[in-house]
């Protein structure tokens, strides 16, 4: 049912490079990719009016950055954007009501099954014509990520970011730490940090989703990307030995996680990293939001360590954030114009100038102004053999929120009862995926 998986091919490496090549080739060719602010090719009338825009960019930095991108749009177009910002978590929780009620014309959302789910139910308008404009800037993998189950595009990518193990360079230098390449080294490193008085792994899971990053990586490193995707689809049993091994591996790491995670939000845990009280954190690149500009230069990461040599460090978790068009927009033309702009390199560059904790989705974006960490992140993703989107975007939303969030939280409280846990997950999975 949901077999078209974005970013899931082994060949993303090839298609990614091919896409890059094509993009460079195109940009050499001429004026196809003028700043998307001018949207349509001049022959059609310039769109005007107001477009309503539902955004969940509620944290301070992303909010400012988005506003900057929209200001850039306002300068070059005749369209007024009515921005409606809702708190990040609330926006996602209310998405069902929102899309069925009176949604804004354009709204922020994520690629992956989560997008296809809503597209399939008719809650979004297809925007293949926007993709005709911007398609040249994206690799096949991105296009697939933006495509619904019916083969049409519904999603415009904006930026993406990898998940990895983040740390402060100064802390590593001071204590003589080295990034860990495999699981044993990882545990040894954590042990060392503990004896040096640091919290080895800053950790928070009050909101339920941050721990998914750790789970996804443990699963992909232990069992491989294909198994992970299959498990997310509901095609594997949670009671299988492979899944149990994942939890057992996690259990070995748990003593090094920050205590009291279930009462802490990720921003507070990241603060521990900022304050040099914690050594590492498994998080997305957006952890940089918590750092001041100066401190951010000290931020670095290493890919999640290998566990099973068969799978190495092939897979990278790199969710894509972007925008969609709601089902019955009031100002469709202007909305599509806005989407074209947002899908273009200029908008993304403007955004990243203010919020550098992500990587532009467009291959034409100017990476020369990237900070070292952005460059490293870019390399990590483009070099990845497989890319996953994140647990709550790769599987059914009801499974992710009503089953997985409580299940992982239960595991964090009672890491010893793995058998009971996976049995419960499997039962509920069968009920939901049925």
């Amino acid at each position: 049912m949901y077999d078209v998986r974005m970013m899931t091919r082994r060949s993303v490496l090839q298609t990614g490079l091919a896409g890059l090549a094509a993009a460079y080739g195109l940009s050499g060719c001429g004026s196809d990719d003028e700043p998307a602010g001018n949207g349509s090719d001049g022959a059609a009338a310039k769109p005007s009016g107001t477009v309503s825009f539902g955004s969940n960019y509620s944290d301070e930095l992303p909010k400012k950055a988005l506003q900057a991108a929209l200001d850039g749009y306002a300068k070059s177009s005749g369209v007024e954007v009515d921005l409606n910002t809702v708190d990040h978590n609330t926006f996602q929780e209310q998405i069902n009501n929102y899309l069925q009620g009176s949604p804004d014309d354009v709204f922020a959302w994520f690629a992956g099954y989560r997008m296809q789910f809503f597209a399939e139910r008719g809650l979004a308008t297809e925007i293949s014509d926007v993709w005709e404009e911007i398609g040249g800037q994206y690799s096949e993998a991105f296009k697939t990520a933006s495509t619904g189950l019916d083969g049409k595009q519904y999603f415009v990518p904006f930026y993406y970011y990898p998940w990895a193990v983040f740390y402060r360079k100064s802390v590593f230098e001071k204590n003589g730490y080295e990034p860990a390449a495999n699981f044993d080294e990882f545990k040894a490193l954590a042990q060392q940090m503990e004896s040096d008085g640091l919290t080895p792994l800053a950790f928070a899971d009050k909101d339920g989703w941050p721990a998914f990053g750790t789970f996804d990586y443990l699963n992909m490193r232990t069992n491989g990307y294909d198994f992970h995707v299959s498990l997310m689809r509901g095609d594997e049993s949670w009671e299988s030995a492979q899944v149990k091994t994942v939890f057992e591996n996690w259990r070995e790491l748990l003593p090094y996680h920050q205590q009291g995670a279930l009462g802490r939000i990720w921003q507070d845990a990241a603060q521990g990293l900022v304050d040099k009280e914690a050594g590492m954190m498994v998080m997305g690149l957006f952890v940089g939001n918590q750092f001041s500009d100066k401190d951010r230069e000290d931020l670095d990461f290493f890919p999640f360590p290998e566990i099973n040599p068969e799978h190495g460090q092939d897979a990278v978790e790199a969710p894509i954030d972007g925008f969609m068009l709601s089902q019955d927009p009031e100002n469709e033309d202007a909305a599509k114009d806005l989407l074209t702009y947002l899908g273009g390199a200029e908008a993304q560059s403007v955004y990243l100038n203010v919020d550098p904790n992500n990587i532009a989705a467009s291959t034409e974006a100017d990476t020369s102004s990237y900070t070292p960490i952005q460059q490293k992140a870019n390399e990590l993703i483009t070099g990845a053999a497989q890319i996953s989107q994140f647990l709550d975007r790769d599987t059914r939303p009801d499974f992710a929120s009503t089953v997985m969030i409580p299940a992982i939280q239960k595991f964090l409280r009672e890491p010893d009862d793995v058998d009971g846990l996976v049995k419960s997950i499997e039962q509920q999975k069968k009920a939901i995926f049925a």
Partner: protein
Amino acid sequence: MATDLAAAPRTSGRRPRRRVGRLTTADRVAVTLMVGVPLAVVLAFIWFPTLASIVLSFSSWDGIGGIDTIEWIGTTNYEQIVTIYPPFWPAFRHNLIWLAFLALVPTTFGLLLAYLLDKQIRGSRVYQSIFFLPVVISLAVVGFIWQLVYAPEQGLVNNVLGTTEQGNLINWLGNPDINLWAVLVAAAWRHAGYIMILYLAGLKSVDPALREAAAIDGASEWYAFRTIVFPALKPINIVVLVVTVIEALRAFDIVYVINRGRNGLELLSVLVTDNIIGEASRIGYGSALAVILLVISIVPIVVFVANAFKEES
């Protein structure tokens, strides 16, 4: 309209008989509207949705798409809730604990406060205001206030106790073994004031002559309370009991504001909203949970209504 002139001034509380048929047409229209419009509103927006919830609980529906996409699955939802839905029994337990706690602790404390304040000591108005203050604050705001008090590293309690370090951190709201109790303290903080007021009113209606008689006989205060005052409070006791039960079943705001009702703070009301307004959208499942909540609530509702109308019929 012919009046029953024989119905001379009656004592309050007794309704005279009127022959409805004697109303003018204009009057009849007026009466119909006066009752009809509010009735229509209540029926349409409360009773009809309640029935609809009951019906939907036998379905599997993701809420998107029209009514024709509903799948009828009989009692499957209920079976699943009771057998394989991990938060259900904890939520059920928590609601029971909530009820027991509210009934035992803040209710008796409220009674004690009312009794003490009833003595008309100096400053009782001030005390009354202070204890009643939490009642007027929204439960959501109560949740915020107590989050500040309970915050792990920066909250009042931990800093006063000195338990803010990694080793000895007491995670009041994050530790599922204690967070329910921490939240119950907040709920009790609010509930006690409410009960206090109810009992204050009730105590005023206890015939002072009874108390005098007890004192004359040399009874101790506790004895007088136990044998005379408390039994005289019976009508209020019923109200207090029903109010407590309803509040326990309704508990939602505080828990939702703190952590969306997870990890030790599961409650039936939050489970319903999780399945209905979250991204999950399992309408049938959520409706089944709502019906379970409804069934449990019917008991105190019936008690209250029956009690309220005992004097009528």
